[in-house]
């Protein structure tokens, strides 16, 4: 099979699910330059404040987002390499410093074992992308484990001690837990190092055993994936068996029920933002050509991320080749609004809750970290507006401007 035939099949693979399921697939028209402005209170309600216990020497940077573990709210500060844990009611629980393990470590939460995992490179080695792929292909060679380090913090142990652990294959392959004993991998790459030309964008595993592959592509020379590393995105819903799946360079949003995939939405963009047909069949000659294409076409569609849906709205992010924008789809009016055009208003204390980043979804609630200065300045300027009950004690204590407050809210349903 030559490359051209293979490319044709790949395009078909990409289009057929969308076409075959066209009866169910709903089109969502997105105009990136749409300028309409709406009030935040039209979309957001059920605002609840969770002031965090003020502790000396504990600072949470404004860019930090809230992440939920089994028992805690977790705030990461990758600059200072610190993780701060609070109970879900806002009481300080502990602080984990991971400065000593080096610069290349990022934290992730392992929900299966209720642990914070720090997986990263061994500082004694410098790896290129090609090295990483070679290691991945020879992951069964135990000598390859020396390139990585893994540390864990068991959150069921209140001492929050950082312990070294041996990396395993799941760490190396970045396998993510889906449900029960099912794991998935969504990394997409092309290389002459692959012996088999057949690859799948999304793979399901039962523990370590390959179960099912979706969206076949040419592992060596797929034009759209040449000289880049891509990844299928999974967005969790409150139900562990139901997830949204989106693919790079594909405008279709899939819903996944256990291991079955269905296209549910298709984003339709103006021609100037859409990928041209040549992108799928004409390969880039080298990395520089791909990089220049990306930089010269910053507003061309790349991938959809972070889908949340309720009866009235769908929120999602669209990553263009060099930009990221967040949108909200109003099901009733079938219109899409850029989230940056939604403005806070005084009924919600002028707090900007819908924004391009920073909000974390947990079940059907969103959580966002803000600092007390936003609230202090608002209530100072609007003395006629009553202070909510869950903030009264906090504000009466005259907190510092930097004191953290978590805000819980929902999209109207």
């Amino acid at each position: 099979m030559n490359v051209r035939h293979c490319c044709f099949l790949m395009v078909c693979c990409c289009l057929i699910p969308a076409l075959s399921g066209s009866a169910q697939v709903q089109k969502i028209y997105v105009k990136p330059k749409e300028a309409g402005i709406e009030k935040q209170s039209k979309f957001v309600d059920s605002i609840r404040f969770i002031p965090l216990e003020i502790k000396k020497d504990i600072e949470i940077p404004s860019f930090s987002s809230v992440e939920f573990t089994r028992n805690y709210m977790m705030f990461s500060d990758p600059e200072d390499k610190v993780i701060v844990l609070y109970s879900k009611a806002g009481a300080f629980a502990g602080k984990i410093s991971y400065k000593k393990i080096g610069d290349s470590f990022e934290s992730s939460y392992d929900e299966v074992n209720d642990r914070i995992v720090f997986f990263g490179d061994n500082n004694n080695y410098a790896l290129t992308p090609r090295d990483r792929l070679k290691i991945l292909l020879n992951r069964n060679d135990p000598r390859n484990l020396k390139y990585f380090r893994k540390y864990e913090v068991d959150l069921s142990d209140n001492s929050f001690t950082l312990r070294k652990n041996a990396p395993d294959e799941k760490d190396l392959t970045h396998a993510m837990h889906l449900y029960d004993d099912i794991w998935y991998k969504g990394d997409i790459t092309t290389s002459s190092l692959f012996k088999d030309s057949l690859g799948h964008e999304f793979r399901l595993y039962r523990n370590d055993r390959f179960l099912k592959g979706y969206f076949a592509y040419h592992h060596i020379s797929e034009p759209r994936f040449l000289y880049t590393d891509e990844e299928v995105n999974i967005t969790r819903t409150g139900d562990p068996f139901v997830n949204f799946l989106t693919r790079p360079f594909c405008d279709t949003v899939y819903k996944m029920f256990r291991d079955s995939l269905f296209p549910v939405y298709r984003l339709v963009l103006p021609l100037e933002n859409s990928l041209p047909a040549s992108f799928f069949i004409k390969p880039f000659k080298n990395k520089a050509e791909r990089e220049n294409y990306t930089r010269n076409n910053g507003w061309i569609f790349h991938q959809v991320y972070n889908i949340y849906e309720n009866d009235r709205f769908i929120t999602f992010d669209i990553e263009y080749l060099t930009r990221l924008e967040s949108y909200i789809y109003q099901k009733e009016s079938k219109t899409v609004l850029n989230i940056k055009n939604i403005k806070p208003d005084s009924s919600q204390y002028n707090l900007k809750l819908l924004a391009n980043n920073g909000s974390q979804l947990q079940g059907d609630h969103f959580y966002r970290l803000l600092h007390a200065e936003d609230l202090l300045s608002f209530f100072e300027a609007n003395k006629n507006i009553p202070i909510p009950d869950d903030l009264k004690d906090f504000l009466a204590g005259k907190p510092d401007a930097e004191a953290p407050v978590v805000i819980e809210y929902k999209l109207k349903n």
Partner: protein
Amino acid sequence: MPAFSQTGKLTGTVKDSASRAVLERATISVLRADSTVMAYQMADKNGRFQFTQLPLKKKLLVSATYAGYNVFYSTIELQGGKTDTLEVILTLDNHDSLGVVVSSGPPVRMNGDTLEINPAAFKTKPDAVVEELLNQVSGITIWSDGTITVNGKEVNSVLVDGKPFMGSSDPRIATQNLPKSAIDKIQLYQEFDRSKIGQPVQPRDSLLTMNIKLKETSKKGFFGKAGAGYGTSSRFESDLSFQVYNKKSSAGVGGGFNNINKNIGSLQEMFQNNTYRNMNPNLYNTGRFGGNGINRNYSGGISLVHNFTESANSRQNNRAVVNYTRSGTDLNLTDLNLQNRTTTSNPQFIRDEGVQSNQQNRQDLGINYNKTNTYNDNLNLVTNFSTSTDDGQSNRNTEVRDASDQLLSTNATTSRQHRTSSNESLNLSLAKGNSDEPAKNFFLQLNTRAGNSRSERYVTSHFNSLTDPAQNTDINRRYNNSNQSLNITGTLDYTGFKRMLLGRYNLFGIFLNFTNWFSYDRNSDNTAVGDYESSTASYIRNSSLSNNNKREKAEYTPSLSLSKFFYKYRESGYHGIQLNLKLSDELKSEKNQSSFTQRNLNRTFQFFHYDGSLSYQQQKKEKYRYFGSLNYFRNFEYPTVDRLYSLVDSINVYDIRIGNPDLKNSITQTLNTNMNFNTQNPKSKFLISANLNGNYSVTSDPVTDSIINELSGKRSNYYINADRTENRSLNYNFNMSRKMKKSELLLMYSGNLRNTRSSNYIDALRNTSKTFGISNQITLQYSMNTALIITLQQSFQNNKSRFSLPGLKSFSNNGSTTRLGIVLNLPANISISSTADRVINSNVKKPIVLWNTFMSCRVMKQQGEIKFSAMDLLKQYQNISNSVSAYGTSTRITNGLQQYFLLTFSYFPRKFGNTAAGKPKK
């Protein structure tokens, strides 16, 4: 003046009409009655804005803009004692659902990481150029030396549509020629520094770049200047600069002819000096009074630039630039040198005066090709060809007197020479970086240069000793010389060395760079010297000076650099330390073949040395940036064959050079420190930058002179090693700017200190000389809305020398210059400017005042200019300069320009796209 001290205040909020949601970052502008911008700001996160210090009882227009909304306008008139509040309600522009703003839009906005300036939002004169526009943007400062800073950060490159405008790296060709009306927007962003390809990226490695995006209708155009002037004392000038461009190509012709010492030798200089700018009349492109002698200069040239790619970004370049210049100078110089010469027993005073004329003609052809595809590759190829001919003659008379003003000797020389030379050079630099294959990262630089020269010189010298007539000499000598030279130098930085050597091993994060430097140098001289024999009326070969010499030198220096970076990024900024250690082994081999046996040498040298540096940098976001470094390095030098076995020519009786075969190698150790600080606070009206550079070097076994002074003043210099020489220097500058609405105050202070301690021998006695020099300059410039620019400048210099040998007298001289400059740009296209320099020199009895005045008037719809220059109105100017050395102080007085008046007419042809500059298309 209470009327001026009372000002009004305006506050308000900006909201959406339908939802009443506040509109953060909406732009609110306060305009005068004539629609010029008085002040602007963006609404805060609560939609609030606040203006202070607004004039009272004047009608002001307030506009508010926000993408996708109709523009809001309201007229206000502020009264004293109370704050006016305005609620701005913006309605959605339903006719423009794609968000294209019909109005001029906000003056500045952030688009991702790029700051975009919208020219249409700034009200300027119809013929304003980019520089005048930039002057109105808060945070941008254009310093008087042409440097542009944005919130304290220096703009490293100015591009037009992603490329150097007209192929030039000088930003002024773009900013002082392109009219505001031709500009779509101006972008400011950080760009990767290609000189760091393959190396770890540091915060300082990005370059602040300004990109001027032309309107689609202005992608082609032409501009230039043709001017000619004539004045008293037969002074004249003429200048030509004409440039034409389109999307891919540009061409320029330039030239000039003058006898007012105006520099026109370089084509790029011609283009830069003949820009259209009308904010600050060019006080520098005038007769140069500080120059030596009277120069008649001419030049003419052409420059062609072609971009083989249409890309409008700065990553992808594929460009060729060709420059050709033909230029020349006729110099007429009379000079007088007064020298206090140190000797142990008889201090000597030397008076040396001469008349010199010289004619030089040269042609230069340069071809530059640049290709880059990404930020990780770079190919640059530069070739230059030049030819020159020099013809000159001079007459000099020298007198040496003792402390009691008794004449000791005289020397009269005449010289006549003709020289032709040609040079070719080829410079190649190639860099590649690839994160996937780091073992293939490298940076190669290769420079080759070849030259030929031929000269013929006739010198007569008549030395008359009044102390010992037996020393009298009378020489008539001819020198014929031909020289061929070839030099090849290369540097290969193998930045992938660590990967190649250690594979995946990271070596504690230490970066390794293996550098190979090599050089091959070949120099062949054929010198024939003949002494005139009057009896035969011919030149007889002088066998002690005539010689053939061929020198070949090969050098190779492998170096290993180890660098380690420690840095920390935070939301509020970053700070980091960098350590460097460089180990080098210099291997040198020299072979000298000469017709004199003792000059046949075959030598090899090896010198191992280690250099190091430590640097620290800190940036507090939107507050300040600080950088400091400490460097240590060693240099090795071996004596040249001309110092070991000099060919002694006694025709210059006051400086007879004699070699020393016992000279030793010398080693110099240098410690250098560099510190700079600049504020980067966009909210502050003050911008401060300061720089300090200190240098200390000590040389062991330096080559110095052993001087034998004879009673007649005749002097022989023997090369000899001293024990050590020490040099200290400190350079510093401090700049500050203060914006006050439309006016700006600039303060620039710079100076340097130099201190040298060196040894020599005078009449066989060891002497240690200490010299000290200080130079300081402070400039204060106030500009009011480009209509008035006042410059006040004070500079002073002091030089001292002291000697350890008893009987030697210490000397000092000093000078100072006070300058007042005023530029007045009147509304009726008339500009008046004047500079007055008051020069004080310790060797001149009375201060000298150089007063120049210019008056220019723009006519013919701004495309013509009549300029009247009145130079040296007080007719006082003299060219005087002071210097100091280990042997005493010197004062040099030369002829130069003196009072003249000049009337010049210039025409500025200009067209950008289909619209003539200054006439916006309707």
